[in-house]
């Protein structure tokens, strides 16, 4: 996992979900309670947006963001790590990844609509040290498009990409979430990356 060692969870923003809430839902969901997911999502989503906005507001050249860092922060804020196992963490990150993706895309779209100079939101894809990432920076909207396109004929791969790219899960963790063997996940991941890389490269040309 990428959570920085030894850091205590951040206190939640006033009025937002407490770690207790989220952890509770998360644990229940991990043990099979699908309804818990429905309750989890809105809690996480609003937090997600706040974190993302805060990070983007900071002065950075080209507004680079690391989705994993965002998701990690999200996790630290919302989940009581003492009570969760890595399996439930994996689950959390699974949805967090999806949400983060949406948040970033929405943000990028709204900035584009404002036509600000440098409106493209660039995402840093240095998700995790042990995962080789294709590009240092990429346009989030392009990634989103490409990923959606990939998802249209291979939804599994789209999910794997989300989990690996956006949430930074390891191969094993990803395998757990999607319920397939790590070996398969690895291959799927490589192929998905190849396809995405090619797709994004072609878009850059066009």
């Amino acid at each position, binding site marked *: 996992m990428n959570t920085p060692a030894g850091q205590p969870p951040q206190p939640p923003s006033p009025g937002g979900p407490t770690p207790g809430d989220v952890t509770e839902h998360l644990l229940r969901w991990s043990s099979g309670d699908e309804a818990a997911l429905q309750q989890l999502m809105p809690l996480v989503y609003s937090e997600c947006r706040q974190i993302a906005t805060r990070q983007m507001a900071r002065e950075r050249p080209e507004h680079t963001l690391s989705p994993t860092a965002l998701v990690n922060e999200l996790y630290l804020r919302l989940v009581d790590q003492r009570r969760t196992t890595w399996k439930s963490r994996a689950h959390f990150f699974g949805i967090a990844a999806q949400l983060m993706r949406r*948040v970033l895309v929405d943000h990028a779209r709204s900035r584009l609509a404002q036509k600000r100079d440098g409106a493209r939101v660039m995402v840093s894809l240095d998700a995790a040290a042990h995962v080789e990432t294709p590009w240092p920076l990429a346009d989030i909207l392009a990634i989103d498009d490409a990923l959606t396109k990939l998802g249209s004929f291979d939804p599994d791969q789209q999910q794997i990409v989300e989990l690996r790219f956006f949430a930074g899960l390891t191969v094993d963790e990803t395998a757990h979430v999607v319920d397939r063997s790590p070996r398969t996940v690895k291959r799927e991941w490589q*192929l998905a990356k190849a*396809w995405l890389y090619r797709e994004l*490269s072609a878009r850059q*040309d066009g």
Partner: protein
Amino acid sequence: MPSTPTPPRVSQQSAERWARVKATVIEAMDLPERDRAVFISRACGADEGLQREVESLLANARAASNFFETPAAGLLGAEEPARSSGPLLAPGTRLGAYEITAFIAAGGMGEVYRARHTVLGRPVAIKIVATRADLTAKRRLVREAQHASVLSHPNICTIYEVGGDDADAGPFIVMELVEGRSLHARLRDGVPSLDETLRIGIQVADALEHAHGHQIIHRDLKSSNIVVNDSGQAVVLDFGLAKRLDHPGSELSRDSSLTATGVLAGTLSHMAPEVLLGGEADARSDVWALGVLLYELVTGELPFTGRTPFETSSAILGDSPRRVGGRVPFALRLLIDRCLAKAPASRYQRAADVRDALASIARRNSWPLVGRLLISMRWKRWTSWTAVAVAVGGVAVTAFEFRARLTGQPIGRISTLAFVPMTWTDTDATSEYYARGITEALIGRLGAIADARVLAPASAARAAETATSRAELARQLRADAIVEGRVRRSPNRIAVDVRLIEPTQGRVIWSDAFERDRRQVLALEDDIVRALIAEIRLSTRPQAELAPPRAVNPEAYEAYLQGRFEWNQRTKESLTRAVADFTRANSLDPTYAPAHAALADCYNQFGTQMVGTGSPRDFRPRAAVAAVQALRLDPYSAEAHAALGYIRHYDWQWVDAEREFRRAIELNPSYPLAHLWYANLLMSRGRFVEALREVKLAQDLDPFSLVVNTNVAWVLQVAGRHSEALEQLRRTLALDSTYVQAHMRLSGVLEHFGQFDAARREAETVVRLANGSATALAGLSALDAASGRTADARRELSAVLERARSQYVAPGAIAIIYAKLGDTLNQDLWLTRAYEEHSNAMAYLLVDRQWIRDATRERLLAAVGLR
């Protein structure tokens, strides 16, 4: 709560296809490297599209990950021969009629040995496959031989024969022994000279052209595949990955163990983007590789590199190649850029085109006269598309080809191009000079870069007066195409739309829009110029050296353009306003060199007799400060060098002055004032032939300029060709009968012929036109003195002297009167004053016959270094 967008419906067929692709790729990934190609071809069978897709994804996967442990040098798929104990064949081994004499190298998929024919004794090179059991590699080898044997060309390694399926070593190729080092090895010692680079490039391009002509593309062209032999010939080796483009039904293409695209087998660093993306390789991907090669030869480095194969392929697909340094001729830089265009359609389409382009760069070494480039600019009216043409003189008219971007068909050869002045879209009063200024700047920049001569805008104005339509203008100027433009300004942006039009039918051939932040207006101008050069394949000057465009404060730029507008009118009052404008520009943006240079020009003019704002003693130092500052900011400014040359000339720094003028001309041969002022320098040294040549060049560039035309007459006059001078002055006055300076000169010429009445009429005209200025009056006085009307002369002289007490009168003008009166004492007095203030007239002491020859003159001549 946002929802994930529903993915588009996917047809069953493509999902199935994807599944198949996926299965194949994943299975291939699980295989060891050397088995992959075979597996793929088996799995895909005849389905070339499937095979291409699989290979492309594998290549991209490789680029996208570090799974395969490829060395950082980025070889993609190079098969390292599994060698456990050195080269396979020992010296003495017999292969057919040949005997191995030594091991040369291992490379690609095989090993290369030196050998000799046992009977003939001929030394050859023999290539075998390294791994005995590797069927794929063996087939490749045979294929290589089959390809290359078709080709017979001095720059392609000749294949003599293919031998021995019987030998243990398997098939082997016997080929020409090329003694020498590969370019790759040679580059380790440093880059070759420009001449050698061009020569090698031409030879390699020629070799490629030959191969392409036989439907064979190389696909693996690189510096390690090219050897320069001891006669200096470049020889291309290793057509091992080459592919035949035709013969779809032949045995060659049926055997698909050679990859369809060569993606797995090519060298990443030289791979063209379209091939990397899974497309077909063709002649243009070889052109790309040629571009990479040229880049290497010129810089010693690869244009696209990365620490991992990934970064390299990213660079290939998305980055521009690292900038090539300034020592490389501009034309060569453009050529390389074009070879390395990401889109194949934007490259040279044939190796022969690259060869020809290289050859033309090699040929050029002196004054480049390529085409007639007409640049038009509107001068007075601002509401219609009146085109003002600036003709470019060219001695040798070399046509350049033009391709219609929209239709994709060649239009035919163009030898003249007319620029219609830019219009503007807003009602801001300043927009006229802004648009005009941009047009002028484009002309100037094109003149500095392009291999053509460019005429000054003022002359264009005259021609445009009578043109009523584009077609008519084009006809008058003998132009084949017209460039039009429109400038749009907004608070933060500046945008220019440019169109290229074929005039007879008014058809738009090419158009593009350029837009940048207001601060980047100079870079925008550069964009336009480069686009034009590339689009119409205009040749560029090898000597073009330019500072890269930088940002300029927009208000400063506007002030500068206003100043230019004033400067162009050349009256005392307008020059004063120009100084104010340029000074304002400099205070707003002290780093904008042209404003400093322009300021220097103004101060220089102030100190002349004609403008007579004041003494050179007051203005020339200011001019010098401005000119030096301009050069400090931009050493490549032709205008600044010319201004400095002017200053040096009239400070009698003869050698420095000449050097400055020559440098100005070298930087921009289309800058008329550089030629004009250089002509004056030459004339003052008595070098009349050269002076006339230079002043004619100025005239060629600015045929309707009053200043230039009058100057031509002056040079003719001083050179003793008075009749021609007379004729020239009449022509000048036909352009504008109110031009004071021309009347002044005419008066002098008529005086020479003894036609004193006519001369006097001219002198009186001068006085009238100049509103009775002291200088004009002095001229009349001198004439009267010369024609014997002494009383009139003295009366006028007194009036002049009276004026001199309260305003500046050039001492030289007064000295002349005394000279004509025969008063050497007073001549000396005023001449000495002229000398002390470094009056312009002093520079012409040697050649100006008006002065009385005496001891003072001799002394002064020595003092200024003319003796």
